């Protein structure tokens, strides 16, 4: 039971971090139709900026400043890059962000080197916060969950309750009308893209300290975030939320289970041993296959429910 609770909390906190990442991507995609391949690179930039700020001003300043900086970078990218290729269509935009991801990774190599940085959890958040039946639960993970939930609530409020949110939603469906009403639609898009980048940056500040800040961090989370967006349904924020939690928990629980197909077979009374054909396939434990599961989930989703969990449109 204790084990189950700990794994559940681990799954939820990891899922919430994934949601912080995927939310920015989903918002940008649903509002602008741009799939930002460099989204994970903004996540990485967030961690690196936060590290740089934290060496001078400490962790808390980094938490505030780094996402803003990443947001500015995002706005510059939109203004001077994306807007130029917009006329060539969505594939060109995707290619542009793909090249950008390369460039950001190389720039990080260039400036901060290739090895991991010493970007750590601040002492205030270090250590256990409460006990679950005897096992201490780390404070930082709790903090991670809080930030993520706070972010979810504020995005929702910003999009539905504020004036700028309404303008953004209107610019999505009726850009000409909004333009005619005197709003600067390109500027709205610039803000949206910057905002999405800032969200990724925030995730980077949190995730970089919790896990590791190195030039490989973008590549390692990028594909998972895309899987989440596909599984959740392209452009659906609620879908991304559910898919993030689902994948976070899926990965955590599958790691805890040492089941394999060979075990399943022997349960049915079929004996499979190292001499059976395809033995290495039957012998793979679920815990070993955990990282492949999100992709399998994506494939299954595409076969049985192509529009994703909460997607509204196909295609």
């Amino acid at each position, binding site marked *: 039971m204790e084990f189950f609770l700990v794994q559940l909390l681990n799954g939820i906190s990891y899922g919430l971090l994934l949601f912080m990442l995927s939310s920015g991507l989903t918002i940008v995609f649903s509002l602008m139709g741009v799939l930002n391949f460099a989204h994970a690179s903004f996540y990485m930039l967030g961690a690196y900026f936060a590290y740089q700020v934290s060496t001078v001003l400490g962790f808390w300043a980094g938490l505030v400043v780094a996402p803003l900086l990443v947001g500015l970078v995002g706005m510059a990218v939109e203004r001077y890059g994306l807007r130029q290729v917009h006329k060539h269509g969505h594939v060109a935009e995707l290619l542009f962000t793909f090249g950008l991801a390369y*460039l950001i990774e190389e720039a990080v190599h*260039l400036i901060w080197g*290739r090895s991991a940085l010493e970007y750590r959890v601040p002492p205030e958040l270090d250590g256990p916060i409460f006990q679950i039946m005897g096992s201490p639960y780390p404070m930082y993970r709790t903090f991670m969950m809080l930030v993520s939930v706070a972010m979810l609530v504020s995005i929702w409020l910003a999009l539905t309750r504020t004036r700028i949110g309404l303008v953004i939603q209107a610019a999505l469906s009726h850009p000409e009308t909004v333009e005619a009403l005197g709003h600067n639609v390109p500027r709205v898009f610039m803000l949206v893209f910057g905002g999405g980048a800032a969200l990724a940056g925030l995730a980077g500040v949190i995730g970089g300290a919790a896990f590791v800040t190195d030039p490989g961090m973008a590549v390692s989370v990028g594909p998972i975030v895309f899987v989440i967006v596909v599984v959740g349904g392209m452009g659906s924020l609620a879908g991304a939320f559910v898919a993030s939690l689902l994948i976070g928990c899926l990965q955590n629980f599958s790691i805890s289970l040492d089941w394999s197909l060979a075990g399943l077979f022997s349960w049915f009374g079929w004996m499979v041993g190292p001499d059976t054909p395809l033995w290495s396939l039957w012998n793979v434990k679920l815990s070993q296959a955990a990282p492949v599961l999100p992709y399998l989930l994506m494939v299954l989703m595409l076969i049985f429910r192509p529009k994703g969990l909460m997607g509204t449109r196909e*295609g």
Partner: protein
Amino acid sequence: MSTLRYRPLDLGRWIVWGATALLFALAPLMSDASFVLTLLSQMGILIIFALSYNMLLGQGGMLSFGHAVYSGLGAYFTVHALNLVGKGAFWFPVTLLPLVGGLAGLAFGLIFGYVTTKKSGTTFAMISLGIGEMVYACVLMFPAFFGGEGGISTNRVVGEPVLGLTYGPALQVYYLIAAWAFVSMAAMFALTQTPLGRMANAVRDNPERAEFVGYNTQRVRYLQMCLSAFFAGVAGGLSCINYEIVSAENVSALRSGGVLIATFIGGVGLFFGPILGAIVFTLFAIALSGFTKAWLLYLGLFFLAMVLYAPGGLAWLIAIQIPVLRARRFSELLWPYALALAAGLMLLCGLIGAVEMIYHLSLESAEESVIALAGLEVDVRALPSWLAVGALLAAGGVAMRHASRFVSARWHAIQQDIQRGAA
């Protein structure tokens, strides 16, 4: 845009293909350094791979981030076939081994393509990425078949020599690659002329209308995908014979990204674009990586510049000059081009200077602060060198702005004249 011409003998086409064959045959004579042969072999393989990629991106409008899956798995099957032949399990000429790779690629194209081609556009791109990651993880998970991260090595000199070919010497391997590259090029070109190739274009440009005419767009994409996977597998098989090792790197996202960049730089809109791209990319990857560790950065910048300013790729840049040449107006563009080139060089020098200096400071941090750049000794810790680089960058930027305005003004004037002449 090329138009269909039903002429029994297209002389121009024969000349082009004949010249290509001759080029393939004569290329190794350029120099007898084995380095050149290594380079040419890699180019040949990448040409097939990039052309197969363009069957998706250029002809079918499908942006894939996981194309290395098909070439890599093709290579794995080829390496096993080669090892079995080596053990004497059955007899098969090495010359035809790339076919094994091609068939393996086709088989996986049939399996994965069924899932990926359900969608098009951005969703297709993401799914292809996911499939690529999945296959990569699986390759490391099953060392019995894939040899783990060490991969599987082999020896291409097996069996009785057929027609005196042992494939021991690199020159023989080059000609094997060249022959396969030539045949694949011809086959892929022929495919663009078939109804399927035409339909793929239609599905790319206007899926709704294609559907309306009675074509199943998903099936067209699926077929195109499978054929493309076949040729990717052939490329994989050749790379297995060339390197005599196949490892997880062969299916990695890095490979997939590489072929995407190569194809795009060359140009997706024209058939010969990817060939050009493969040549440029190999030069970047092999020649430039010998000079500087920042070659990936330069490649990335070059790619971004192409996306921003020349989305048709190098092939397009060349192709748009042809009408101007025909109209005998090219000489008017020489001066603006020269200016733009000079400005570009200035910008490039500044950029290279800045990048190399930062790289030196951050990575090597060695005792020496003086580096040699193009024969100049530059002190990376001294202010003057930074000022010089900054000045170069600024001046280059300003000059580029003016030069590009100059070029485009002349260009538009000529285009208008040509159009008026045509009308």
